[in-house]
């Protein structure tokens, strides 16, 4: 959590374009960053989410765990409308996303604007392969947020340095390891100074020896008070960094609470079984 005592300014936040209100890192604690109410999602006849409600306050780190097919990734992707929810309500920073009766977004502009406040880190990195790391990081600030080029480049260099890729800014993603690509993807996410970061299994596509370097970066972000929703299979990591853990089972929240409770004293049998199977 950020406190008034933190003397040295956070490099990411100071390099932030002045046009956007300071968020995340300095955000007031206690305000809802993300609120999901009664979220449903069906693919054809298959109901993947059956009414999920979840709230993340500013500065919260919410870990979402669950078996494969439990709907955790789908839930994350519904928040920024990469998947169109079938029903429910999504509120980002107090702004409710306008939805039609069938769940499709009613206002494309609004979605695009809200998406710039959410930053997603994908399982398979999804860096733009025809652009260098620096170009990947400055792309959205320059072309979507209209940050002046020089400013965007300076900020991108700071961010790349922060994730330990200062000397790789001219490399193309295909020539880097998975861990390096994912760290670059995190730098790309930080470049929009998001209110909320969405991590969709950020280490699942990595070789085991590369997982640590990515988790270190995420841990630092959590410590600095970034609001994040983290879908993960790394239970030990979730227990360590999360303020709140949500266990999804077949499209519903089976159990949730502080990590010590959820991991240390699971109430539901399914969660107990799940934790046994993954540890």
């Amino acid at each position, binding site marked *: 959590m950020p406190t008034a005592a933190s003397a040295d300014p956070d490099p990411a936040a100071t390099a932030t374009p002045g046009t956007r209100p300071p968020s995340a890192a300095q955000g007031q604690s206690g305000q809802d960053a993300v609120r999901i109410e009664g979220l449903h999602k069906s693919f054809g006849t298959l109901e993947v989410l059956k009414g999920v409600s979840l709230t993340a306050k500013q500065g919260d780190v919410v870990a979402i765990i669950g078996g494969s097919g439990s709907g955790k990734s789908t839930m994350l992707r519904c928040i920024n409308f990469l998947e169109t929810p079938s029903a429910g309500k999504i509120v980002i920073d107090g702004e409710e996303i306008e939805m039609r009766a069938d769940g499709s977004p009613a206002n494309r502009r609004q979605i695009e604007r809200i998406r*710039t406040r959410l930053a*997603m880190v*994908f399982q*398979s990195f999804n860096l733009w*392969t*025809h*652009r260098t790391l620096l170009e990947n990081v400055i792309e959205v600030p320059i072309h979507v947020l209209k940050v002046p080029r020089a400013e965007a480049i300076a900020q991108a260099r700071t961010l790349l340095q922060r994730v330990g890729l200062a000397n790789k800014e001219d490399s193309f993603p295909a020539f880097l390891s998975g861990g390096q690509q994912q760290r670059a993807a995190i730098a790309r996410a930080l470049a929009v100074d998001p209110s909320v970061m969405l991590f969709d299994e950020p280490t699942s596509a990595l070789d085991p020896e590369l997982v640590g370097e990515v988790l270190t970066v995420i841990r630092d972000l959590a410590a600095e008070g970034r609001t994040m929703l983290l879908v993960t299979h790394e239970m030990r990591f979730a227990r360590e960094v999360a303020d709140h853990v949500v266990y999804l089972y077949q499209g519903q929240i089976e159990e949730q609470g502080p990590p010590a409770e959820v991991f240390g004293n699971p109430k539901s049998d399914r969660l107990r079984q799940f934790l046994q199977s993954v540890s």
Partner: protein
Amino acid sequence: MELILETLGLTETAALLSLSSPGWGANLLRGLANSLQIALGAFGMGLVIGLFGAYGKLYGGPILRDLLAIYTTVIRAVPELVLILILYYVGTDLINKLAQFMGYGRVEISGVVAGIWVLGIVQGAYATEILRGAIQAVPPGQIEAARAYGMPALLTLRRVTIPALMAFATPGLANLWLIATKDTALLAVVGFNELTLETKQAASSTRSYFTFFLAAGGLYLMVTLCSGVVFARIEKWARRGQPSLRQGGL
């Protein structure tokens, strides 16, 4: 120079191909310029049609998809020569009828414009398929990342999809461009003064068929060779960031 031509017995040939009258060289070059103009125009028009066509086929509604399927099937089924005759005569006829109906007199249709339209429509059908394949080859995650960061559709197209699909589309488009340069020769049948018709006129006036058609063949070859250099550069640029297949250490 004179001596070399003399010993090779090519004095007469040089005179025929000379750029100044009574040589026909200038006519051939003018024909080549016309051909290139049409090829460029038709290729550009084909790309635009192709991009819309590919998007329509991939993301359009059922009616649009059916219409595009008819377009690409018909255009690719009918021989280009026949298409050119149909589109040229039907097209000019329709425009004239329309002009008369609206109270204008007969309209003189420029050969270049007509040629670009006719070949552009043909090229568009092939470009649609090339670009459709290339769009599908772009990793969906890259487009998804663009959406997730709030890029509107057109910006995504310009900044992500088109640069990414270039790597897959360039070889096919290079083919299409070469076909365009040679399809201009078919416009000779509708009396347009491109390279082939100019060559034919020069040849039949002087009865030196071999000389002139060989020269024309040489010019077409030059176009191809230069295009090859240009497209190699484009492809190298389009494939930046992708490891070379040869680095496998075979």
